[in-house]
């Protein structure tokens, strides 16, 4: 069955989009990630223009983040003050991101830029995750860390302490932190830029950053990050709708619908798999997507020409 997308002005297969939503929902339920990094490349592959893929995806992320955050909210695992400070950076980042998006679009390089950013981001995060999780698998079997390792740790610790002591320090009682406001603002800013340009929540980048740079308690990180993502992606969505008219509500509903069902299946499936293995599988999927995109960038394309109606 095909449905006509009123904003994209193309006709698209309902089954395929529902399937995509299902897969992405499964990932979000299984691993606790947004899965936006899969949706945008896949929609582009389906022939949806990059601008519409990104713009629409931001509104789908609002729905999946709301679903995700409610559980954390009930368990009081959301630090609203940190989220609010991050959001200040996130909103500015969204505006900057939409602006960069428009420039790249005018230059005719938006699809190339999106691909390169994905390859760099997913490639580095995927390899790091794979490295870290496989180390922890081996680490469990091995003994205590040697001298050089502890030395390295202390140096990283010093660097973090230095960053946190930047000016404009704010107290965050919920997380028991007293750190410079620039740290959450900076992390939020990067999240906002990514949401606008790539149509992703950026949780896979923000969560580690919040742990390493801010030193947030692990229990509060996921909920706080998701809570903040709702507003950043919501804002990015409105920005895309206003500046580019690229948010297709019909496409978004289909993605959300598939995502809702997929998330249920994902949550159930995750109960049967241990955390470490889940992380290794996720790292493998992220790496696979980045490799596919890298190949597309490096291989000579079948068709050298592309047509764009202004």
């Amino acid at each position, binding site marked *: 069955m*095909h*449905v*006509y997308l*009123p*904003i994209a*002005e*193309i*006709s698209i297969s309902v089954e395929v989009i529902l399937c995509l939503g299902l897969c992405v929902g499964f990932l979000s339920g299984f691993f606790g990630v947004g899965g936006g990094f899969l949706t945008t490349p896949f929609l582009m592959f389906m022939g949806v223009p990059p601008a519409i893929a990104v713009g629409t995806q931001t*509104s*789908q992320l*609002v*729905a*999946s*983040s*709301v*679903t995700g955050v*409610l*559980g954390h909210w009930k368990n009081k695992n959301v630090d609203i003050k940190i989220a609010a400070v991050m959001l200040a950076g996130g909103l500015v980042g969204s505006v900057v991101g939409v602006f960069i998006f428009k420039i790249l679009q005018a230059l*005719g*390089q938006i699809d*190339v830029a999106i691909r*390169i950013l994905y390859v760099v981001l997913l490639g580095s995060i995927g390899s790091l995750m794979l490295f870290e999780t496989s180390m922890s698998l081996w680490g469990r079997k091995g003994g205590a860390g040697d001298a050089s390792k502890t030395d390295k740790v202390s140096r990283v610790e010093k660097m973090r302490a230095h960053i946190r002591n930047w000016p404009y320090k704010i107290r965050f009682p919920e997380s028991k932190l007293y750190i410079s406001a620039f740290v959450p603002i900076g992390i939020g800013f990067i999240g906002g830029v990514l949401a606008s340009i790539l149509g992703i929540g950026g949780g896979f980048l923000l969560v580690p950053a919040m742990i390493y740079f801010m030193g947030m308690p692990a229990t509060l990180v996921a909920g706080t990050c998701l809570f903040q993502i*709702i507003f950043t992606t*919501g804002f990015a*969505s*409105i*920005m*895309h*709708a*206003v500046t580019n*008219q690229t*948010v297709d*509500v*019909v496409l*978004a*509903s289909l993605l*959300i*619908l598939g*995502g*809702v069902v997929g*998330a*249920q299946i994902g*949550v159930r499936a995750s109960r049967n798999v241990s955390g470490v293995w889940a992380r290794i599988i996720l790292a493998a999927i992220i790496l696979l997507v980045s490799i596919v995109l890298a190949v597309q*960038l*490096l*291989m*000579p*394309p079948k*068709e*050298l*020409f*592309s*047509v*764009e*109606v*202004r």
Partner: protein
Amino acid sequence: MGQKSVYMMLVVLLFCIAASSGARAQLVSAQGEGLTLALADKYVDINTNFSGRNVVVFGVNETGGSLVVTLTGPAAYTLVRKKGQALGIWVNAKTYGFKDVPLYYDYALNGEERDLGSVDMLRADGVGVNAMQYAARARVPVAQSRPFHEALIRQKQQAKHYAYDAKLVELIGGKLFKVNFELPADVPTGEYVVKAMAYEGNVKIAERREYLQIRQAGFSARLYSYANNHSFFYGVGVVIFAVFMGYAANVILARR
């Protein structure tokens, strides 16, 4: 069923026109002497479940000449980009802009294309894909813009927005003709021109035009116009909808 009866009425009407010469004198313009053209529908409405449609063109040709019927979509400024390697990555390297490129083009003939006249004649009248001569925006030698021009046509053909070959004009009886244009699901919206031309030798002896509106309708059209005219409220609406969907999903999840 409704469409079928409309066709029948048109056929009857056109036979009447063909039969009575008095009526003909009133209906045809000086330029369209002996040639009449009618569309089964003046509008094609694109709904949410739109998956392509047929546009049926009827006409009466009393000139005795060969017939050409073209369907041309709205024109737009179109960019053609060529990829090139930069640091090993394939990026968009070169771009040419073409003015007034029809978004859609299809045509039908009742004779062989070569019988209709010289190639230049057909070009001047915009018949056939080869007739499409777009002006490149920047002043560049034709040799440079030519590959871009060819790529543009090739891609439009692959997207089924340009015809590869001419359709056949169906002749019903002696003078009545019919052409069936098949619009794909992603047909561009806008005002289309249907042109019927009669040729004798190398000379165009008659021409008639009709206009066809292809537009979004119903729910789809309302969404489109709202998204364009009230983009802020549209954006806010989509976000509120997304929040509601996310909340509803959680409620359903929590119950189980």
